């Protein structure tokens, strides 16, 4: 799947056959070959890994959308975003276990508790993200673009330290409440409920976001502000409030991602937001930063690439190489197609 999408990308870039273009095509062909061999040799593993990739990809999508929303409106890469996602995992543990007394084997009571935890985590992270914008980025609105970028890295460290002080340096365990029984099991391919739940919660959140941005008054204000702040202001749009709202939504998405991820993976650590944040950021760049469907596409692709790399049997590089592969993709995209898979070409190149 990854290969199908990147093939025309590299091809279109080079009108005449060039050495790099040829190498790119060869690489993509090798990738397709590798996937097909794996599919033929162990079809059931391939199916399992594919479904894991989709599940991971949907969590990445929620995080990647936050990067893309904020970049779209401020042209700022909010490096603290991944750490807000991490905080959401910690909120999830605190809210669900300490407030609601959630634990394994509670039966149907689990559902409203998880739902309430999800909403609370979204609310908390949305507010925190909006507060970060107000304190750390708004005063730098007129400053050179490097200034808020460095500030974002600083905020990222501050949030990590807060997480460290709050829950300590080790992995903290989240209650394992999602059922592990299979939704279906066909031809050796298993899909368990705990994975499906992640996807089932993600899809309505994504649809709600698209509706919000496309159809509502606030969404129109967001799009107008992203395209031209001065013009938006003279239309009567409160630009600062719109930017705050965008951070609120981005934070709420990170909150949803953090809750789902922590209940699925059942562990949280203060530094996990940094790594997952960068992976999600790569997904946003892959899809075309600033482009909402692009972020989802990029996230699913990255999720699949990671899963194939870590889960396939025949000559897979393995999990030691996941980060290298993900960031190689980032570099290749930035060099050869900075506007991403779905992004539009802009004077700044993406």
């Amino acid at each position: 799947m990854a290969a199908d999408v990147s093939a025309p990308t590299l091809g279109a870039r080079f009108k005449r056959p060039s050495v790099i273009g040829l190498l790119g095509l060869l690489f993509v062909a090798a990738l397709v070959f590798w996937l097909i061999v794996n599919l033929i040799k162990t079809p059931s593993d391939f199916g399992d890994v594919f479904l894991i990739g989709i599940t991971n990809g949907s969590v990445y999508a929620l995080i990647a959308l936050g990067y893309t929303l904020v970049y779209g409106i401020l042209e700022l890469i909010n490096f603290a975003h991944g750490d807000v996602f991490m905080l959401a995992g910690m909120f999830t543990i605190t809210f669900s276990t300490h407030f609601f007394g959630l634990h394994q084997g509670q039966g149907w009571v689990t559902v409203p508790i998880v739902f309430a935890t999800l909403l609370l985590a979204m609310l908390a992270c949305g507010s925190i993200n909006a507060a970060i914008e107000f304190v750390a980025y708004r005063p730098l609105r007129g400053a050179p673009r490097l200034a808020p970028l460095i500030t974002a890295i600083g905020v990222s460290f501050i949030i990590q330290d807060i997480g460290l002080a709050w829950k300590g340096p080790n992995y903290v365990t989240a209650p394992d409440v999602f059922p592990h029984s299979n939704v279906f099991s066909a031809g050796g391919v298993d899909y368990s409920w705990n994975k499906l739940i992640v996807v089932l919660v993600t899809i309505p959140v994504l649809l709600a976001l698209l509706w919000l941005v496309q159809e509502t008054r606030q969404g129109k204000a967001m799009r107008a502000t992203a395209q031209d702040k001065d013009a938006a202001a003279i239309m009567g749009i409160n630009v600062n409030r719109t930017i705050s709202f965008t951070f609120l939504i981005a934070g709420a998405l990170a909150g949803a991602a953090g809750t789902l991820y922590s209940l699925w993976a059942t562990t949280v650590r203060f530094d996990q937001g940094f790594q997952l944040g960068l992976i999600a950021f790569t997904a946003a760049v892959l899809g075309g930063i600033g482009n909402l469907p692009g972020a989802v596409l990029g996230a699913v692709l990255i999720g699949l690439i990671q899963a194939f790399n870590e889960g396939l049997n025949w000559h897979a590089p393995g999990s030691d190489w996941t980060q290298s592969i993900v960031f190689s993709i980032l570099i290749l995209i930035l060099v050869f197609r900075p506007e991403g898979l779905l992004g539009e070409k802009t004077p700044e190149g993406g």
Partner: protein
Amino acid sequence: MSANGRSPGAPILEVGDVHTYYGSIHALKGVSLTVNDGEIVTLLGANGAGKTTTLRSINGLNRPRQGSIRFDGRDITTVPAHEIVRRGIAQSPEGRRLFPRMTVTENLEMGAFQRHDRSEIREDMERVFELFPRLQERRSQKAGTMSGGEQQMCAIGRALMARPKLLLLDEPSLGLAPIFVERIFDIIRQINEQGTSILLVEQNALMALDAADRGYVLETGRIVLADDAASLKTNEEVRKTYLGET
């Protein structure tokens, strides 16, 4: 007697001794001007004289450091930009500043952003389409893909969607083919006849003075001449500098 055959009313916009800075550049050094209800007033001047800055001071994007701006009897000097349009001032800005990835219809809807009267907004959009039939043909096209003339029409149409009492037009003829320029000025007159006062910044001084009731000449941040349009057209300085006569 004004150009549109009605006598001008009371002042609707009063700019008094405004000083505005661009960073550390002292762009406006005490600009005063008045637009009366129902008038077309033009602001002439060379590039960099401060015409656009004057408009940005009025619409709240560049807040003056000194001086006052009154609109419709109320002080609006410190009112934020997004509130100004609610008071009744809309603008077609320099460079049009459409939302390039929105359709024509969406751009026009953005012009009515602060209004909530849905059925009247639809009527106003029909009126804009009557004024600019070209926009109706292009209604679902992305604004960024249209020609300069079409974009200019869309920018003026978008400003009209706010139902302004005062319309600020910044270089509506810039970069347009002569046939479009004629059409745009016809439409400016038409808009004015329907009761909207207009402050027009224009480098095509001849067309501007033909359409306007009165005019001001701006030089390096100061008003150096103020008169009715007919007198300005015969003024020797104006003829030399802005009408290209020797």
